[in-house]
């Protein structure tokens, strides 16, 4: 068996199987994330949420998917057809390929690369292209306004995300995601770097265009922003991409700050449940995404920019310098 897997054909089959082993659970999680979001929002607003299709409404995601599949795809007459369909595919594709480097347990990553953190950062910063291209190719003013808002927003918040990541990397001394998690064996980084954890979480909300930073959609002003001209599966791909990105940002937060698959209870039966701890931590963060959405009104655009450039950027920069100073002063640098 292992001899067959070493041949080129075997390698290809193995790689495809590995990819499916992470993509299928992620997509399943994404499907039930939409259900969970509706249920959580409903509970917070004293409603019932989806409860008709299947027991407790559990088949609702599949009913939605079926509906999307059977709808007509409408293409605006002035649209650039190629780019119009490239945009949703790009959004969804980027959201999925980032999972190649996420380690859900020790050694459980498809690609355990040296620059995993940078890869994740690069992929998440590319997500903006799906939105810009969609807004431009739709040939609609609302879509275009949404795209411009989103471009400025994501570029602004990437800056502070970058500094937060650098702060974490200072404490780790490696760009490998597995090393990042293993460096948290003694203390999770959310404790010593608590302000950075908060900055990262809020910037993650902005990076995924989630409430209260969903100005790119802003349905009360620009109807649905960049998605206004999309229907059927093209719309569904944006939807899938947005939710997969939410899971991805939560997974990044888990790896960088919450100790990845490490168990909070440090003895035998619990330390073997790595992937379960990982999923649990991701789920808690996702719940916070919904909680924020149910609680806060949407930011105004100038408030969004003020928060990004005048609050988070100086804060993360100062904390970076403080962290570097503390590591140097107390001799805690990883490779000193």
């Amino acid at each position, binding site marked *: 068996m292992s001899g067959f897997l070493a041949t080129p054909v075997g390698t290809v089959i193995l790689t495809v199987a590995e990819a499916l082993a992470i993509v299928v659970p992620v997509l399943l999680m994404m499907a039930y994330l939409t259900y969970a979001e509706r249920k959580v929002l409903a509970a917070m607003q004293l409603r019932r949420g989806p409860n008709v299709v299947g027991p407790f409404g559990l088949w609702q995601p599949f009913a939605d998917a079926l509906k999307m599949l059977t709808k007509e795809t409408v293409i605006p007459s002035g649209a650039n057809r190629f*780019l119009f369909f490239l945009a949703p595919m790009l959004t969804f594709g980027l959201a999925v390929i980032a999972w190649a480097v996420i380690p859900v347990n020790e050694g459980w990553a498809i690609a355990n*690369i*040296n*620059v995993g953190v*940078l*890869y994740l*950062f*690069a992929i998440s*910063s*590319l997500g*903006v*292209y799906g939105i*810009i*291209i969609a807004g*431009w190719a739709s040939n609609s003013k609302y879509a*275009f306004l949404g*795209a*411009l808002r989103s*471009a*400025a927003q*994501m*570029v602004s918040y*990437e800056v502070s995300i*970058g500094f937060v990541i650098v702060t974490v990397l200072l404490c780790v001394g490696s*760009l490998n995601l597995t090393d990042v998690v293993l460096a948290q064996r003694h203390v999770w980084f959310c404790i010593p770097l608590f302000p950075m954890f908060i900055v990262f979480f809020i910037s993650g909300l902005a990076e995924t265009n989630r409430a209260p930073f969903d100005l790119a959609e802003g349905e009360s002003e620009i109807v649905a922003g960049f998605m206004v001209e999309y229907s059927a599966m093209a719309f569904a791909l944006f939807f899938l991409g947005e939710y997969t990105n939410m899971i991805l940002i939560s997974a990044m937060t888990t790896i960088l700050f919450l100790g990845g698959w490490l168990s909070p209870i440090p003895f035998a039966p619990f330390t073997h449940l790595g992937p379960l701890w990982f999923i649990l931590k991701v789920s808690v963060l996702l719940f916070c995404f919904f909680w924020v959405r149910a609680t806060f009104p949407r930011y105004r655009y*100038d*408030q969004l920019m*003020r928060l990004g450039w005048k609050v988070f950027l100086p804060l993360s920069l100062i904390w970076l310098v403080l962290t570097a100073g503390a590591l140097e002063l107390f001799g805690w640098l990883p490779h000193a």
Partner: protein
Amino acid sequence: MIVAFFFYVFAAILLVSAAAVVSSRNPVHSVLFLILAFFNAAALFLIAGAEFLAMILLIVYVGAVAVLFLFVVMMLDVNFAELRGGFQRYLPIGATVGVVLLVELALVLGGWKFAPDAMSLRFAPVPEATHNTAALGDLIYTQYVFLFQAAGLVLLVAMIGAIVLTLRDRQTSRHQSIERQHARRPADTLAMVSVPLGVGMAEVSVPPPPAPPARRLAHADGHADGHADPHDAGAAHGGGHHDGGGH
């Protein structure tokens, strides 16, 4: 074999998209081809074993610089027919720059052939036994730290210059002062009074709150008039109170 195949695939796409950048008519398409070219360059870096450079290329150029390019190109209403009109005027300068670049490229490729001393540098981009991230960090932050800082300073000067050139203090725009809003307490703005029926604010001797600095809403007065009681003064003050309390 497989490496060579992928190298040629990425190199071919890189060259084609680079040619499309300068030849496509729509500037937005040009920027998109530029992004494709960056991607393939990053792939070539990866094949060469420079994974750090590949990721930085993606993050800096594709994730930030090209986004702003695209942003500006999409937003500006540039008349490209007019720009093309200057083609013949700028041809000499453009041709000069092009020729200089071509000669430099030829020199670089010639150096490959005629300077065997440089061979030892060239074929080991990654030092053995260390990641290229660590190797680059070591090089930039220890050996070339002053050049690195100087480059940063140049960028800082450019940034300050851009801000100075474009910053206008617009007196007419309304700014939100979040500190002032937070410092505001209910006692500063609200007065709780129990007003007997049929009596206006003048009779219970509550001074009207200070008028807000800028505009006075016309419809607030109209609204108060609708509720006019027999006392004219009371109606007017009621309108004023409504205006102030609306904040």
